[in-house]
């Protein structure tokens, strides 16, 4: 495979560094433009196996609020985002729910948990 250069925008934080990735024979050979190690890690992943954190909400029973916000504890493959949403929308949590509580142990077969990002006390 020939050398290939990809231009990316880092999504690690709101700085949004412009990254340049050199790929040779499917291997990442050089990453530039990043201001921190997260940028390099993102660039490598983005050209080989792009992933995202998915955030959404889940219904709560018996809580002071009807919904609790959630996120995937780690990033999941981009291709699994909509399967992940389907699973998340089937879940109902029981109050009390606290930040970090697991509301779904394995989302869309990724082995990644979905955790609460807000506290909802029972009423």
């Amino acid at each position, binding site marked *: 495979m020939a050398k290939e250069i990809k231009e*990316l925008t880092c999504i690690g934080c709101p700085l*949004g560094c412009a990254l340049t990735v050199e790929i040779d024979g499917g291997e990442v050979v050089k990453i530039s433009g990043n201001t921190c190690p997260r940028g390099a890690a993102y660039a490598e992943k983005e050209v080989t196996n792009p992933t995202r954190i998915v955030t959404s909400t889940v219904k709560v029973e018996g809580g002071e609020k009807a919904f609790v916000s959630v*996120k995937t504890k780690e990033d999941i493959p981009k291709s699994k985002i909509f399967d992940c*949403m389907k699973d998340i929308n089937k879940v109902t949590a029981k109050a009390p729910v606290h930040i970090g509580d697991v509301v779904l142990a394995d989302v869309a077969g990724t082995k990644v948990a979905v955790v609460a*990002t807000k*506290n909802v006390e029972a009423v």
Partner: protein
Amino acid sequence: MKAYDIVIVGGGPAGLAAAASAREQGIQSILILERDKELGGILNQCIHNGFGLHTFKEELTGPEYAGRFIDKVKELGIEYKLNTMVMDISHDKVVTAMNREDGMFTIQAKAVILAMGCRERSRGALNIPGYRPAGIFSAGTAQRLVNMEGYMPGKEVVILGSGDIGLIMARRMTLEGAKVKVVAELMPYSGGLKRNIVQCLDDYGIPLKLSHTVVDIDGKERLKGITLAEVGPDGKPIPGTEEYYSCDTLLLSVGLIPENELSRGMGVEIDRVTSGPVVNESLETSIEGVFACGNVLHVHDLVDYVSEEATRAGINAAKYVTAGEKAEGSKVDIIATEGARYTVPRFIRVDQMDDLLTVRFRVGAVFKDSYISVYYNDERVMHRKKPVMAPGEMEEIKLQKEKLQAYPDLKTITVKIEKE
């Protein structure tokens, strides 16, 4: 009348950080007044991730970020009142507020910290022609409906304006099953952060049409569609470029305006560019002992910077309460010109400033391979190259007290953008 050393108006990220830092400076008598039913402000509806990398060195969602500061405020035993609306603040710092338990009440404050945040520019401010059917929301209203109340505003969506909330909502509505057809932006560049264009639009194949705006609204009871047109360099629609999009929902993400009715009411001087109070190096407004921080001061892109700024406001308010304000030292104006639209603060008293002071500003257009230049009087003292600068992303410079003190007869500091 009750009395507090510091009254903080607003229990969002700015108010919480200001309260915590003032308490850490030893001020016991602090009261936060919050109009919503919980602390945390707008972060409660920002359920997406990307917050806190600067402050906590990890990536948090909005509610998690707020949660850290709410916990801190509670641990520190800081008093707060929810569901409480501040009606008025007098020039002498008498705060009039009301809620269902206490009715209407007044509080004498020694210092006031303004942390009311901002609100969204509405359709009325845009003069979009056409009927006024249901289905037109500000992006933030839609965000609250979807993320907190559990309602979907519609199924087929067009978004006008590429501010961050609009971009975030393009993704959010898509994830919840809506079809987001297009994001239109009047300007030739996006008002949002680059990363949000990548992960909210590009990821989902949502087109971004720059230099486009809505020229007609179709539908009487419920929105049926909108007409987009390209705009020329003069900002006016180009005839013949009209394109119809059927949709039941139009989200507006067309800018944020600091919410300064209370500040104006008490006589605080407002900056015409930021729509926020004019402040000095201590984030103190034109009224002694009244401080401002967060989006009420100027609209930020990053909550981390809000927390940092609010922490300084809290420290300075605490200083004011314990020591009283010292006599004014020599005043140095900071002038934003040639590409730089404004600076916060707008002037500094060198004697009163910290050893290192961050001055934040925005540029007025997109600049490529240009320099941020700082002049003391007429001498250029700083010249820093940036590959890209855009109005959607806040810039900063740092001023060192030592250098300012050593500079003979310093009258003005000028910030400008230069090609070379």
